[in-house]
Each structure stands twice: as C-alpha cells, then as structure tokens.
C-alpha cells in the first residue's frame, strides 16, 4: 500500500510542480514581446503565436534565407517563431542580397514558407496576391543614414527600384527637384508603397560605414506595420 501512496504523491508533486513551472513561463507573455516582422501569411500575431509549433519548415523552405527563429530575448511568445531578418546580408552588394520577393522568382508568387507551414500559423489571406501582401514598412533613421549625415548614398533608393520597378518603388529623393547637386538628395520612404520586402535593409551600408556612431542597426530597417 505504501508503494501506491508514494506513486500518487509523486504524480501530484510532479503534476503540480510542472504545471506551476509552465504557468510561470506562460505568464511571462505579459512582460510584453518585441514586435517582429513576420513571413507572408504571418501578419495575424494571435494566429501565429498560438498555432506555430516551431517546426522550422518555413525557415528551411525560404529560398532567400531571410527567415530566422526568434530568440527568447524578444519575448516568450516569440521564442522560436519565425521572423524576417534582412540585416544578415553583407552591405552594399546590389547584385548579391537577399530579400522577400513573395517567391515570385522561385514559386510564381506563392510564398513557399506559407505553403509548407503545416500548422496554419502562416496562412495567406483568401484574397492574397503577391502585390497585396505587406510584411512591414521600411523606416529610415535620419540620425544614422549616410545621406543625411554626410555624403550622397543611393543604395536603398536604387535597390528598391531594382526589385519593385519604377512604378512601385517606395523610396524617393526628398529634394531631387530643388537641386541638381547629388549630395543634397535625401532618401525618403513612402510608407504607402513599401511592402517591407527588405531589399533596402539588406544593402544599406550605414552601420558598417558609420561604426563610429555606435549604430545598433542599419539606417533603414523594416519594422512591423503596427509599430
């Protein structure tokens, strides 16, 4: 009989202990979590964090390798969920950078990440088109942007035209008309046209060129929409 008692006592201790530990971990979600740029179909945060089983298939499927798992540092809710990372590219390589083209090149505009996601965490809206999906918006930091600080720089402006085409390009020069002088041209993001593809961030040369200014990130970075 004693054996039986110790068995159920252990069951109770472990069951309660583990549940309390998991509740403790779960409640850390109220500490808040960093807003992250998600892969296509992952824009509904609630849907993504509840359904994602952290299988990493989306990460593996991305031909551009721009999806990475989030660290626990960005919140327990985010840990191991997929988010977009465009700053891993070596800066200034206009012919060798990685960004999200909604898999236009590799899969006819159907995002492979959302296609392989087995849990429905990445779910494209019913009316999805490669042009309608918006991952986030590029935000330009005039404190660190080279064009604003010192000399003319055209990387983000040019790459945006390169990947989006003249019509849809989202970066324009603020005072292109005011002066012919190149080094007064200041890039500005038109948030209404930007889809957060990340090409600008991938090529931005600021953090490297300006290491003296202690920039923690590149001067143009894609941010989630609701930030």
């Amino acid at each position, binding site marked *: 009989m004693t054996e039986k008692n110790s068995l159920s006592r252990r069951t109770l201790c472990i069951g309660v202990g583990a549940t309390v530990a998991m509740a403790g971990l779960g409640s850390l979600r109220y500490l808040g979590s960093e807003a992250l740029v998600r892969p296509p179909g992952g824009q509904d945060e609630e849907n993504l964090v509840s359904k994602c089983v952290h299988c990493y298939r989306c990460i593996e499927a991305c031909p551009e390798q721009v999806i990475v798992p989030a660290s626990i*540092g960005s919140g327990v809710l985010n840990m191991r969920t997929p988010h977009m990372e465009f700053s891993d590219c070596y800066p200034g390589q206009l012919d060798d950078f990685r960004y999200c083209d909604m898999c236009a090149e590799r899969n006819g505009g159907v995002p492979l990440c959302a296609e392989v996601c*087995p849990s429905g965490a990445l779910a494209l809206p019913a009316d999805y088109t490669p042009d309608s999906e918006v991952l986030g918006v590029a935000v330009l930091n005039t404190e660190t942007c080279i064009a604003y600080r010192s000399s003319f720089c055209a990387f983000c402006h040019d790459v945006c035209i390169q990947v989006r085409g003249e019509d849809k390009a989202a970066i324009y020069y603020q005072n292109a008309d005011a002066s012919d002088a190149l080094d007064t041209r200041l890039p500005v993001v038109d948030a209404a046209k930007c889809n957060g593809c990340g090409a600008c961030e991938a090529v931005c040369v600021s953090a490297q060129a300006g290491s003296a200014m202690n920039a923690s990130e590149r001067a143009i970075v894609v941010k989630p929409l609701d930030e």
Partner: protein
Amino acid sequence: MKFKNARTVVAVVAFAALAVCLIANVAAGTWCGFGAADIAVLCPVGALLSMVAAKTLIPRAVISIVVAIALVLLLGRLFCGWVCPVTLWRRVKEFFTPVKKLEERKAADAKVNQALAAEEIAALKAAPSGHACGACGACGAKRNAKFDSRHAVLGGAVLTTAVFGFPVFCLVCPVGLSFAAVALLVGLFGAGDLNWSLLFVPAMLVIELVFLRKWCGRFCPISAFMSLFSRFSRTGMPVIDNERCLETAKETACSRCATACSFDVNLRHPDLGELPLHDCARCGDCIDACPTNAISFRVVSGKPAPFADAFASLRGRAASKERPASPALDDLEPEEA
C-alpha cells in the same frame, strides 16, 4: 550489433539528417512538424496544444493526431526507443557518468528486481494451484498505475496552453529544444547571432535531462500521450519464451530483462516495473540482456500475460519432473557482442 548501439545509430542518423536539412534549407522540418512538400504531420502534442491555444480545430493537426495514434497502436513508444533525440542525450549523459557509478546503480537495480522476482516466485510456489492472484496480495503491491505523473504533466501542458493562449510546453520540450540548439548554432556560426536563447536552450536541456531524474518516465507529456494509446497495442512487443526463461522454467529469480530496460518497464513482472508494460519502447535492451535468449520481438505479440499466468503454465510440469539444482547465475551471463 547490440540493440542499444543499433538504435543509437538510427537516432543519430535521423537527427543528423534533419539537422543537415536545417543547415541546407531543405524543408523537411523537425519532429515538431515533419514532412516533404505539402505532406506533413505535426507532433501530436504540438498539434493538440496549438488547437487548444488557437481554440479552433486545425484539419492537419487532427490528421496528425490520428496518424500518431495509429502508429502508437502498431508500435507503441517506438519513437522513444529509436528516434527521439533525447535518447541521444541520455547516451551522452551515460558517457559522462563514471563507469563505477553506472555499475553500482545497475547492481542496486538488479538487486531490487531480483528480490521482487524471488518474492513473487516464492509466493506463487507456496500458493495452492488454481488460486486467485488478485485476492491474495502476497506478491506485494503493484508498482505502477494506469496514469502517472507524465499524464499530470500533459494535463498541465493543456491547461497552461488554454490559459495563456500559446503552446507553453513547446518552449521547454527537449525534443524541440534539440532542434532549436541546431538552429542556434547555425545562427551563431552563420550570422554571428548572439542572443538569450543561447543560454536558455542549453540551460533548459540540462535542467530536464540532468537535474530532473527520469524525464522520460516521469515528466515527458509526449510519452504520456503515447502511453494513452500504446496500452491497446498488441503488436511488435518483446515476448518471453517461458520454456527458456529462468524464472518460469527454473524458478530462479533473474529479472535481468527488467534491470536492462532503459524505459523502466519490467517485461517479466509487468506489475512490478516502475512503468507498465505498455510503455515498452521496443528498444530491445531486454533481448540483449537475457542470459538464455528467451526474449524476441513478435510481430503479433497478443495481450501480455501477468507473471502468475506464465508461471502457472509451466508449473504442472515442473512439479512432475525432478529438477536439477538452479544453475549459478554467473554461468549464464550473455555473451558479449
């Protein structure tokens, strides 16, 4: 090759293959969600938790659970014995435990198991033939239960997931974290990515697999899930040939199969294992340990018989024949492979 080595190789190859896919960007997934192209199944616990978290039915999650149940009905906890990366962590832990300590532990286990076996054999020998075991109680208490602490942990996982709206257990699942560790290394060496997960993931793995005694048998909700259905499995189990087993044929307390079992199952005396027989992971360690080679896997193994029945089946014969003295156990060590 011994089963233990064979299954270590299988688990290493499986883990390495998925790790390579992660590095080489092949969308095979991990054990959390595994597949090729658009055919994929989810880990049944992950599938359950994500439906609880999202408070909706997810078709693929339901299918995954059904597939998992079907596999468990066929092969029980085979995943634990042959595939789960935690099996590998356990081998690593074993590797770093001093040999002396391992031997001491084994010896202590063997002593306990033999004593239990001797007790049951003695009680059965003393009992009049045709006696009802359930009513007697001389054999000591059953040492396992239909539901145990693992099921409580599974319940806790479902509860916390429902409350907090995301699959909380997945954060600490050692299977998922094993793959998280690979991804962290890829990030670290690929992009120089330093982050808090580099501390959290190894710390969690160490807590669960080093400090918590017996994660697999006492905590793991995946094993809890599997054991809910493996109890109905009648296939692929190791079965003892009672004609050859020392305990039934020679009435000698041996129980080496119980001591060898990596999953705390007692094949000879199912009621006396820390876990019930249906938690058998088809690992084969008992087969390797049996001094008379009495154990083998059977495709259709049928309903496991309690020791009393196995013992009774040979008893009549034992009484009629004049038996030789029990052989000394040391003469019967299985040959080293």
